[in-house]
Every structure is written in C-alpha cells, then in structure tokens.
C-alpha cells in the first residue's frame, strides 16, 4: 500500500508525517495515530518506515501486482551508522543485508560560511568552492577555448 501503520504500535508522534516526501502520512483525527491517506501516491521509499521510533510502519506491496505474504523490513540505526534489511519471500525464504550509511559523525559537516573567505576577485573566475584543490588534479580547472566549439548543421 504501500505503507500502513499498526494500531497497537503507533503512538502518534508524527515523525512519519514530518518526513514523508509525498505528504501522505497524516494523523487520523479519531485515533490520534498515523495513517497513509493516499496509498496510490506512495513510492515505497521507506522514509517513514525508517523514521518510526516504534517500528509501527510496514509495507504491503502494491495490490495491482504484488501477491500477499511477503515482507521487506528495515532497521536504520544512526548511531551504528548502518541500515539492516530482512527480505521475506511469499514462500518463506529469507535474505538479510547490512550496509554502512555514513563514515563521519552526524552533524559534523562544517558550514561553508565558517571556512576561510575566498580571495577577492575569485568570485569572477570559474572556480567553485574548494577548487582547484578538491579536483585532485594538476593544472587547475579544465577549460575549453571559445574556438573549440563549432556550429552544427541546420
């Protein structure tokens, strides 16, 4: 249905509402718990599933082509910097996968505003921030000469 929410696990915290790129996770006004209000605009991106502190959200494949009985579960652990998957086939076979998600501490990226200010005049050249060093090449930023371009047919 993409995504759906288990009544007994959801505590209505709203993390899924806050993260859903498609704006389809909403809080039900009667039960004060989350639900998917527009399953046919769900991409199965799992952003809500990964964000749920109660593991209350799961996915049931799209009814038009996915037979029942499967599951693809995920556990994203920021502190461990891993994402773990368990795939269960309709016939019961299982597969497990674990991948790293980040090599640095969360929040560790410096603001470009805190870095040394670029030299006056650099604003007019073609180099972007951190260039040419960030290209890891000799000879600076590559460029064409205007004469290298020629007009095509028609």
């Amino acid at each position, binding site marked *: 249905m993409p995504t759906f929410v288990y009544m007994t696990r959801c505590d209505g915290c709203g993390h899924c509402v806050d993260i859903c790129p498609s*704006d389809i996770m909403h809080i039900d006004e009667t039960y004060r718990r989350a639900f998917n209000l*527009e399953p046919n605009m769900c991409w199965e991106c799992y952003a809500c599933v990964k964000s749920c502190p109660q593991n209350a959200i799961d996915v049931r494949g799209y009814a038009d082509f996915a037979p029942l009985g499967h599951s693809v579960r995920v556990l994203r652990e920021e502190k461990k910097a891993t994402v773990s998957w368990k795939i269960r086939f309709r016939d019961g076979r299982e597969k497990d996968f674990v991948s790293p998600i980040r090599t640095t501490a969360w*929040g560790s*990226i410096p603001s470009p505003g805190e870095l040394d200010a670029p030299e006056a005049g650099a604003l007019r050249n073609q180099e972007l921030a951190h260039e040419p060093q960030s290209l890891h090449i000799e000879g600076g930023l590559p460029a064409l000469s205007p004469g290298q371009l020629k*007009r095509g047919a028609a």
Partner: protein
Amino acid sequence: MGLFTRRKTVSIDADILIIGGGMAGCGATYEARYWGRDLKIVCVEKANIERSGAVAQGLYAINCYMGMQWGENQPEDHVRYARNDLMGLVREDLGYDIARHVDGTVHKFEEWGLPIMRNPETGRYLREGKWQIMIHGESYKPIVAEAARKAATEVYNRIMVTHLLTDRTRPDRVAGAVGFNVRTGDFYVFRAKAVIVSAGGASHIFKPRAAGEGMGRTWYAPWSSASAYALPILVGAKMMQMENRIVLTRFKDGYGPVGAYFLHLKTYTQNAYGEDYEPKWFAVLRETIGDYVDKHPVPTCLRNHAFLEEVKAGRGPIRMVTKEAFQDPHKETVGWENFLGMTIGQAVVWASQNIDPKHTNPELTTSEPYVMGSHATCSGAWASGPSDYAPAEYQWGYNRMMTVEGLFGAGDTIGGTAHKFSSGSFTEGRIAAKAAVNYVLERKREQPQVSEAECNDLKKAIFKPLETYTVGRNEIVAGTVSPSYLLPLHGLQRLEKIMDEYVGGIGSHYTTNEPLLTRGLELLKMLKEDLELLGAENLHQLQRAWELQHRMLTSEAVTQHTLYREETRWPGYYYRADHPKLDDANWHCFTLSRYDRHSGSWQLEKAPVYHIVD
C-alpha cells in the same frame, strides 16, 4: 467574503531564494553561502529537505564521476558520451561545465561522510561502469541536506511554491515567488534579488502502467510534479527540447534499475525464446536513423526501440539473464543491495512473486514516458552558458541564468545537460549559485519590487480550490462526483489519458502524429479550462491541485514541442509516425518555446547546436 481573506500572509525577504531542496537545491544553497557570506540565503521545499527530491530514498551509485585524478575520463569524453546518447543534441558547453567540476563535488561528498566503495586492488573508487561509481547511499540525501542546512540562513519545509513573481515595472525581471504552507495554510510571499529554480521534473504526465494502487510506483518519484518547468514557463522563460521525453527499460512493475546489472554484474537480456534480439533491429534502424545506430555505447533510446519491436513481434517477455551472475555471492549481494539502496519497491515485488534472480531470470518492461533533465534526456530551460568559452549565441548574462533576468536554474530545470544525475545536479546548483551571488552583488543588492495587487490576485487563485470544494460539496449527498468541481485525482487521470493516447504514451506504443497532437491540444485546452474548477477538500489536496497545474502546463509544452519537431529523432522514446525518419538536414537543432501567460499562446523556434571539435 471568500475564504482567502482570513488567511495569514507571511512575507520573507531574501537575497537569494532557492526553490526546491533536492540535490540541485542543496548544492545551490551550499555554494551560495560560500561566496555570499553576508547574504540571506533561503531554501524553500514542499516536503522536508532531509528526504526530498529524486534522491529521497537513496542511491546505490553516483552516475556522473570523471575520475580525472586517475586519468579515467576527461570532461570532453563525457560530452561526447552525452551527445551520442541523445542522438547528437545536447548543450555541450553546459555539459562540459558540469563535467569539469563534478569530481570536486563527489570528493566533498566522501569527505562529508558518504560511503563510496573502493576497488581493493587499485584503491580507486569502485567503478560500476565508465561513468558510474558505487556507493552505500542510503543516507546520501540526509548527508547532503545537512550541508545545505548548515549553509542556509533559513530553510522552509512544507511550502509549496506555486508561482514566481516578476518586478512590478519590469516583467522580464524575477522578483520572488509565492506559495502556501501545506500544514498551516498560510500564504507565503518571498521577495528575492535572485531566484534559483531547482525543483523536480515530471512524473505522472503520461498514464503509468500501474493504474491502481501501484500508480505511485513510477520510475521517477511521484512528488516530481514538473515545478521545474511550470514555474519558469509561467513567467515567460524560454524552454528547450521539451519533446525529448524519456522511456526507461526497467525490471517489471517495480521499475528497479538495470545499470548495475548490465555494467557491473554483466547480466544481459534475451527474448522469451532465449535469443539475443537487438542486432536484427539495429540493422533495420539504419534505414531510418543512419549511422547513429553504430555509436558506442548504443544510445539508450535505440536499445528501447529493439525491445519494443521484439515485444510487438510477439516474442516477449524480455528477460534479464541473472541466473549465471547470481551464483557468485558477491554479485548476488550487489544485485539486492542495489534495490534496497534506491528502489526498495522492486525488492518488494520480487519477494511477493517469489522471484529470486539466482533461480529465475526476471522480466523487464518499458516505462511510461517522463520529462526531466538529468538522466538520459535533457528537457528544460534555455540557459546562458559559462563565460569563458560558451559561444556568443549561448551567452546573454550569467551562467545558468534563463531568459528572465535574475532567474537561474539547476538540475531538472536546466535543459540540454543529459547524464548529470545526482552529482551533476548538485554541481549545477553550485554553478548557478555562484553566478547568482555575482548577479546580486554586481547590482549592488538592487531590490526588485513586487506588485501588491499581483500578490493579492495570486492569493485568491491559490486558495480558490478550497472554496470551490466547500461551496460545491453542499450540492451533493456524498461521494466524489460533483457537477461543480473536479478533484485533483480526476484532473490528473484525464491529463494522463490525453497524453497517453495523443502524445505518445504506452497505450499508443509511444507513437503520435500531427492530427493526434492537434487533437490532444484541443483536449488539453478544455482540461486547462476545467482546472479552474479544481476542488480541494483540505491542504493536502490543495498541494495536489497545484502539482496538477504544474503538470498541466508542462504537458502543454511537451505537446507543442512534439508537434514542432517534424522528425523521429529518438526512436524508442517516441515516434512521429508522419515523419518516421531522423532528419539531420532540417532538425539537427534545438527546439525552443516561449509561453505567453496572458494570451495562453506558445511561440516555437529553432536554436543552433554547437559541437566540441573532435
């Protein structure tokens, strides 16, 4: 007394306004801060930049990396590749510009914490193919969003931008944007000295193969609602190559990617009877498109063409031969993690249908068409090129500035730069932002003026669907059928049906002609009139209503361009049956359009293609 009159208006002034916080928007936000230390940089996003845009669910590869540090490729090589793949027509000046900067972007991603796989033998990034490197990219977007949040003065999430504003006295000068908060319903007016549109391309303008619950499992994200195009089109920016839609060959139903399968796992396709079907169709293609079929690699559209012809000949399904490769446990892991990293829905489909590629060769399909600017296609705005080498005809101002003053673009928004993908889109955002900082500072922070009357008119128009629904709903007992309004889903499904049947969707084997396109335009006109009667029950539907308006206008552009180009340039993407051949004598050029919002008319023209000397 209309409902809009009680709405709060929030006014925000910015030096640089960035619309859309996906890859391109995050790149623009980062770079704008680097060069514009004391500027007010505002990024506005309809979802949450932590997980927004096409990279929301992650990626398993970065598809645009030169590897200049190891002498793997040079920017010129990438230009030749993109040109060949797009049958000769790309903005080579813009493409080169991205290619020369993109390695620096990728190196920053790695420094910020994105896990990029390494080849244990060489120590270099692990190549999936000539241009692709493999990553553990589940958190690609959160990492990039962190950099953007650090850089921005303010990030506004959950604000759907509906229109750009132009200067009160100069309609060719951008002055800001308006939209609404999808949570509070507040009306937002952003005034800005420069605007960068980095919104998403277009899914859901052609009818998708899955029309029920699975309609959300489009190849491109369902939230890519064509704002990339509609926003600039509405203020008269010239667009290019809007006919150049893309069709994807993908795993059936989930649209799981095939790149790693072809390039890294070395799997291959065959028809239902185990035959390699491509060579015979390529031989026939030579009659209609000449030696373009001999390019290496074979252009994406032509491989689609062979697939389509084989299926039409009754020898489907086409399958990916995975059984051999998947006996290798490493390759099996890569095959599955590839989906879990970027198209989880495909893993769901395979689990549900008991498809284990170690034992079953999975089916492939061709998708419905999409309009976007960063994959093997390059629809988008006509933009000024880099000042150090772009030809005079491609330079009228600042890099990535459109034909509207102060209006810049990046990512799906900018046309002509195929194969930029995630890293190239972020890079293009950086390029546009540096130019925008220059633009603002060189004008001594000149502040364009917005018209209060225009803002008030837009406010009425934006919230009108809520009022239309509230009033019309009282006429009927219950249900979705009303004589007074259309719901957003009704309008979307009509749009998709028109585009499918008249403009070359799956239902017509991607084929159209002048009479079909002309009739399609008549039906689109009526739909456009009917969209004045869109009804929205709540703010969520109001977002859907405006997404539909953006898709509508973009579809009109696609249809106009398809009508204008009288040839079949990209067989496998679409066919003009009345002009079945590629025609380099008359159409080795770009198509440009300009929309007049007052008359609703379109003007089309040709623009020259410049090639890098080989």
